[in-house]
């Protein structure tokens, strides 16, 4: 069964019971049962899997159809397997986004390629829709980017003619102080349209990279960056989020077709997303993970560092 997997087993079991109820009861009855069950359950559970509610609103035939399609996604690609699992665990995506994803998949033929394209297209429409993170607003954020990847991006968008040019320029930027950097990086985005960042816990006003591993490979794992780039030098951006910038929980929509994303832990004590380090090394722990809109380098507050 689609829901009988992973660490959300107990909570998801409710959804199945809830689903049976929905076929025989009125909406108010269901709502009352929902709240009473929620009260009985551990108070630490923050939310319920958003897709459970969407599935329950489907007709039985549609429910069978969506399960078939999610199975197709899960069985035809390694990332698809992760996507299918993440759908079951997602609690922070708005219900209308989850509804649109499911409706779009239902309307699509059961062909892996097309399901994947449709899924990512709908995700693109709902990026940066997760709720604002909890707790004290971080004053300092950090991003680690693979230098080679950054150079490739700067080359693609025409800022430099070659990756070597970009690299030579970046090396010189490491000599600048924060004020100089804010000028030279003033029109260079620190990330994509959905920018992923980390911060320090519990003191959210300090450099997030100080307590993290100082070796590029270990930091790469802690931040769950792409394994293909593992071992390459990392450039560290430390910046202060502008006042109006919403810092959000990452959702499956932000991760699109991502291999290393896991939805935020469903616990009241969890105030932000967490990375999922792809390693068994106990010294490397998950670190806070948030998303926000693209910002330029005019918010940098520390000199650039390159870890190799």
């Amino acid at each position, binding site marked *: 069964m689609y829901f009988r997997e992973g660490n959300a087993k107990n909570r998801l079991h409710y959804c199945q019971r809830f689903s049976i109820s929905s076929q025989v009861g009125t909406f108010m009855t269901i709502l009352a049962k929902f709240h009473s069950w929620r009260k009985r359950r551990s108070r630490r559970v923050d939310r319920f899997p958003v897709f459970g509610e969407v599935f329950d609103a489907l007709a039985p035939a549609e429910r069978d159809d969506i399960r078939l399609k999610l199975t197709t996604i899960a069985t035809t690609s390694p990332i698809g397997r992760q996507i299918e699992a993440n759908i079951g665990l997602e609690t922070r995506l708005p219900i209308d986004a989850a509804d649109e994803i499911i409706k779009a998949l239902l309307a699509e033929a059961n062909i892996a390629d097309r399901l994947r394209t449709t899924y990512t297209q709908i995700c693109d429409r709902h990026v940066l829709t997760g709720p604002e993170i909890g707790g004290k607003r971080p004053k300092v954020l950090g991003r680690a980017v693979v230098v080679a990847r950054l150079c490739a991006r700067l080359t693609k968008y025409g800022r430099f003619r070659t990756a070597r040019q970009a*690299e030579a320029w970046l090396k010189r930027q490491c000599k600048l102080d924060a004020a100089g950097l804010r000028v030279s990086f003033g029109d260079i985005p620190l990330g994509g349209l959905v920018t992923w960042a980390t911060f320090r816990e519990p003191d959210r006003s300090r450099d997030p990279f100080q307590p993290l591993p100082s070796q590029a490979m270990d930091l790469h794992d802690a931040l769950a960056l792409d394994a293909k780039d*593992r071992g390459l030098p990392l450039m560290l951006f430390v910046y202060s989020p502008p006042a109006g910038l919403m810092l959000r929980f990452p959702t499956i929509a932000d991760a699109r077709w991502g291999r290393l994303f896991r939805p935020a832990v469903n616990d009241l004590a969890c105030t932000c997303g967490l990375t999922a380090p792809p390693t068994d090394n106990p010294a490397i722990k998950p670190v806070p993970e948030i998303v926000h809109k693209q910002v330029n380098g005019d918010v940098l507050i520390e000199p650039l560092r390159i870890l190799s």
Partner: protein
Amino acid sequence: MGTVNRLEQQVSAISQMAPSQLSAWINERLERRDLILEDDDSEESSSYPIIAVARHLSAAVVETLHRAALSLLQAWIRNGDAEKADDLLLLIQGLGIKSARTDLERLARSESFANLSSALRYRVLQTLISLEANLEPSFWYGVYQTDRRKLAGIVFDGLALISPNHAIDFLSVALPDPVVAEQIAASLPSFMDDVVPARDRASVRSLIESRLAEIRPPLADVVTEFFKSEKTPLAVLPLPEPTAATAPAHKREWAISSENFPALSAFGETWEQIFGFGPSNPAKLFANLAHQ
């Protein structure tokens, strides 16, 4: 170590492909349809995952990958299907497929080059620069005439690959425009680090500074600003004679003429006239460098 295993699986899957399968797979990857490297970032080139995984592949597989990409490039030049061309060219840059130089050079000289979109023309020229194509100065000056504002930076880079002196010459004729200045500013760090041999950096800096009067603002400003922030010591002249170890990798394949040395023509019509100056004249320094 799940991900490591997955990377190994990706490497293994690519390594087991026959050359024809590899071409088909590259095509699928460039269209973001493949299943081996499916976790890409939509804001990056679809070729980047191939470039990233290539460093994990054996030399033999990389060589096959180069051949497959080259065959796709040749097919594109033949058929003109521009849909994936941009990402294919970025792939060729990222993998450093030097064998693509000839085809790209031929394309850049052909009449069909003018029919490409301006973005693709830029990408082709950028790829030639990335592959360190050593083309004659008249080619780059021809490119410059097609769009003096947008292509000045790429022309500077192309001329620098012939010799630093050509690039310095170009600075005195380049359009004095903020956009051009920005492009030159982007080029200068790599120009000094990668193009100018380490032992010549001080001399080249000295040469540029001696010619600052010929360079118009705002280009002169970015050059001055760049060297102000650099720690390169000033030249100790004369330059040592080139040895086998320090000789340039590319042999010069173009004639030494006033056409190829436009700024030098101001000093005289003949070599005797040009070099009939005292040893401290910049032209003398130029000749020394050009000789290398």
